C-alpha cells in the first residue's frame, strides 16, 4: 500500500512537472515567434507600403521564401484587403498571387486540418475573385461547422450573385450553416442578388423564404413589396411573417401599410405585432399613424406591444406626436405608454434645441 501511495505521489509530481515544462516551452516558443514576426513586419512594412502606393514594383523581400515572411505578408494583406478598394486592392491581390499564396489557399481547402481549411476560405474570400466560388461552395458542405461558416462568409464576399441558390441551400440539409451567417453572406453579395432572391419568397422551405425576405428588406428592394405583403398576410410560418413585416418597414413603401396594419390587429403573436408597429413607425405617413393610433387607443394589447406602438408613433413626426398627446390626455389603456414615449421625445427635442442654440452661438 505504501509503495502504491509513493508511486502515486511520484507520478503526480512528474505529471505536474511535465505539464509545467510544456506550458513554459510553448510560452517561450510563442514569444520567440511573435518577436520574429515583429522584426519581419518592421523590415517589410516600408517595402510593402511603397508597393501598395504604386511607387515600387513587386517586392522581392526574401528570395529564400521564409514562412515568417509569408505569414506576416498574409496577415498584413488580409487586414488591408478589408479596408481598401480599387487599384490598391488589385495590387494586394497581385502580391498574394505572385507569392503563390492564393494557389496555396486553394490547395489548403482540401487540407486535413480544419483550421487550415477555414483559414484558406477566409483568404479566398478576401481576394474576392468570383472564379473561386466553386472552392468555397464545396467548403460550405464541410464536415466541420466552423469551416462551413468561414466558407459561407467568404462566398458572400466574392460578390457573385450566382452563389445565392447554393448559399440559401446551405441553410438546410445534414450540414447546415447558421441562418445569420447565410443572411449576412447574402447581404454582402449586394443588391444585384435581389433578382435571384425574389423567386425564393415563394420557396416551399420556410427558412429559405425568411432569409430571402430579410435580405430583400436590407436591400430596400421595392420590387418585392407586394410579395412581402402577401407573406405578412398569409404565410403559414410565423418566422416568415415576422421577417416579411420587418422587411416592409425597411423598404418603407406606403404599399406596406395595409398588410402591416392587419398584422397589428389583436389575435396575432406579440412578436409579429411589435415588428409590424416598428415597421409602421419607419414608414410613417397618415395611414400608418392612423393604424398605430387605433391600436394604442383601442387595445387590447400587451405591455410590450403598447410600448413599441407608442415609440413608433413618437418617431412618426408631428402628426404622430399629436396622436400621442391625444392618447396621453385620454383614459385608454395606452395612456401610460403614450406619456412615456412623449417624455423621451421631449428630452430628445430639448437636446436638439440645445444643439441648435449651441451651433448658432458658435456661428
Amino acid at each position: 500500500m505504501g509503495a502504491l501511495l509513493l508511486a502515486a505521489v511520484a507520478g503526480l509530481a512528474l505529471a505536474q512537472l511535465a505539464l509545467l515544462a510544456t506550458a513554459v516551452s510553448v510560452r517561450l516558443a510563442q514569444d520567440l515567434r511573435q518577436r520574429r514576426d515583429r522584426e519581419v513586419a518592421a523590415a517589410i512594412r516600408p517595402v510593402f507600403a511603397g508597393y501598395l502606393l504604386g511607387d515600387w514594383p513587386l517586392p522581392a523581400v526574401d528570395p529564400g521564401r521564409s514562412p515568417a515572411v509569408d505569414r506576416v505578408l498574409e496577415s498584413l494583406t488580409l487586414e488591408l484587403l478589408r479596408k481598401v478598394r480599387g487599384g490598391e486592392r488589385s495590387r494586394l491581390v497581385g502580391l498574394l498571387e505572385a507569392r503563390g499564396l492564393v494557389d496555396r489557399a486553394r490547395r489548403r481547402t482540401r487540407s486535413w486540418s480544419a483550421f487550415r481549411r477555414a483559414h484558406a476560405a477566409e483568404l479566398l474570400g478576401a481576394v474576392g475573385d468570383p472564379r473561386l466560388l466553386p472552392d468555397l461552395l464545396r467548403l460550405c458542405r464541410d464536415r466541420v461547422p466552423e469551416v462551413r461558416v468561414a466558407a459561407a462568409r467568404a462566398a458572400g464576399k466574392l460578390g457573385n450573385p450566382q452563389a445565392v441558390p447554393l448559399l440559401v441551400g446551405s441553410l438546410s440539409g445534414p450540414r447546415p450553416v447558421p441562418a445569420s451567417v447565410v443572411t449576412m453572406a447574402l447581404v454582402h453579395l449586394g443588391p444585384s442578388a435581389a433578382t435571384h432572391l425574389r423567386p425564393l419568397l415563394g420557396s416551399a422551405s420556410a427558412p429559405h423564404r425568411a432569409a430571402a425576405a430579410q435580405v430583400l428588406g436590407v436591400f430596400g428592394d421595392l420590387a418585392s413589396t407586394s410579395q412581402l405583403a402577401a407573406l405578412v398576410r398569409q404565410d403559414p410560418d410565423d418566422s416568415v411573417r415576422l421577417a416579411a413585416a420587418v422587411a416592409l418597414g425597411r423598404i418603407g413603401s406606403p404599399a406596406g401599410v395595409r398588410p402591416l396594419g392587419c398584422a397589428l390587429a389583436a389575435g396575432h403573436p406579440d412578436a409579429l405585432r411589435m415588428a409590424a408597429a416598428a415597421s409602421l413607425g419607419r414608414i410613417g405617413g397618415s395611414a400608418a399613424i392612423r393604424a398605430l393610433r387605433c391600436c394604442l387607443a383601442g387595445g387590447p394589447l400587451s405591455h410590450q406591444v403598447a410600448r413599441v406602438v407608442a415609440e413608433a408613433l413618437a418617431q412618426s413626426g408631428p402628426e404622430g406626436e399629436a396622436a400621442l398627446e391625444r392618447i396621453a390626455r385620454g383614459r385608454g389603456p395606452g395612456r401610460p405608454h403614450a406619456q412615456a414615449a412623449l417624455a423621451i421625445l421631449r428630452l430628445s427635442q430639448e437636446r436638439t434645441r440645445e444643439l441648435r442654440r449651441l451651433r448658432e452661438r458658435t456661428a
Partner: protein
Amino acid sequence: MTRFLGELVIWFNWFVLAYFLALHTTYLLLILAGTADVVRELRARSFSGHDDIFANPLTPPVSVVVPAHDEEAVIVESVRAMLALRYPELEVIVVDDGSRDGTFEKLSREFDLAEVKRPMSREVPTLGTVRSVHAPRGGQPLLVVRKECAGRRADALNVGINYSRHPLICMVDADSLLDPEALLEVVKPFVDEPQRTVAAGGTIRVANEAAVDRGRVVGPRLPSRWLPRVQAVEYLRSFLHGRTGWSRLSGLLIISGAFGVFRRDVLVEVGGLDLRCLAEDAELVTRIHHRMRAQRRPYRVVFLADPVCWTEVPTTRSVLGRQRQRWSRGLAEMLWKHRGMLLRPRYGLIGLVVLPYYWAFELLGPVVELLGLPVVAIALSLGILGLHYAFLFALASLGYALFLSVCALSLEELTFRRYPRWQDLGWALLAAVVENCGYRQLHAWWRLKGLWAALRGRAGSWGAMPRMGFGALEPRPQS
C-alpha cells in the same frame, strides 16, 4: 467497543480517500472535457466573424441589466464601459436597489439624468416599490430605475427585466467590467441558433489591481494580496475549466450572475429570478433546465470561455467568508427546491449526473472534508493509522488537488494566456499551493456554516461588500 470504533475509523478513512479520489477525478474529467472546447473556441476565434455579427442588421438587440446597491465607487466607470461595449444595439438599465450612498447622485451628475414617466410591465414578480425612472438628457441608451431595497439582488434584476425592451437580456454586476468584444462573443450562440439557445454565460476573472483605462481592463495581472490571488486561481480552475467541461457535456447548471445572457421570452416564461433563493443565478438556470426538459423542448445552455467579465473579489476574510456562506446556503436552497429532478431519467444528464454531483460533492463536500480531519487524528492517536501512511495519504491527496490546479494553469498558458507576465505564472503556482494548504480548509468551514444556516432555515440576506473601485491603483509597467 474499541475494536468496533477502530473498524469504523478505518472504514471512514477509506470512504474519505475514495470520496476525494472520485471528486478530483470528476474535476480532471471536466477539465479534459472542457479542454477540447476551449481549444476549438480559441482556434475558431480568428473566423468568429465578430465584424459580421456587428454589421448584421439581424443581430438581436440586448438589454444590459445592472443591479446596483451602494456601488458609488464603481458605478460610473462600470456604466460608461457598458455603454461603450462593441454591439450594434443595446440599452443599459441600472436598477439602483435602495442605495444609501451616492450611487444615484454620481450617475445623475455624470449622465445628466432627467426623471421620466415609464410604466413597468408586470411580466415577472417584484417586491420593492419603484420610486422613479430616469433617462439621460444626452440621449444615451441608458435607463436608471430607483427602487426600494428588498434585500435581494433577484428583485432588482426582475425589475430590470420588466423594464427591458430587447429580446436578449444580459445580467451584469455593477462591480464588473466586460471586455469590449465580450457581448458580441456571448451573443453569438443566440445568433447562430436563435431557437435553441436559451442562455449563455462567459468567464469571470479577477479584476483586483488590474490596470483599468476608461472602463476597460488593459493590464490584467494577478493581485499582489494572497486572498484575491488565491481566488484568481480558484476562479480559473473551477469557474473557467469546470464550467467549460459541464457545458461540453450539456450539463451546465450555473451561469454566474456577474455575466450571463438570457432570452427574454424564456425569462418571462419561467417567472424571472426566484426572489427567495440566495443563489438566484444557479436557481434560474436549473429552473430553465427543469422546464425545458419537462416539456421535452430542444434547448441549449452554453458556457463560453473567451468572453471575459472582470470582477472585483473580496479582499478580506470576513467579506469572503460571508460571500461563500451565502453561495453555499443558496446552493442548498436551490438543490432542495429542485430535488424532484434528482435521479429522474426524464431530466436526462441533469437529473442523473449533474444534480447528484452537486449534492454529493458541492453541497456535502465540506462535511466530509472537515469530518475527515478529526477522524484521521483519532486514527493516528489510536494507532490505527501509521504516521508514515497518514503522511503519504495527505501527500497524495494534496498532490492530486495540486495537479488539477497545475492542469488549469497550464491550459490557461497554452490557450488564453491572459496574464502575460512571467512572474504571474510563478505567483499563480504558489497560489495553487496556498489554495490547497489552508484556504481550502477555511473555504470548507465557510461552506459548512452556509449549509448549517440553510438547514436552520433562517432568512438570509446579501450583506454589504465594500468596493475598492476600478483604476484606484496606478497601472504597473508590463514586463
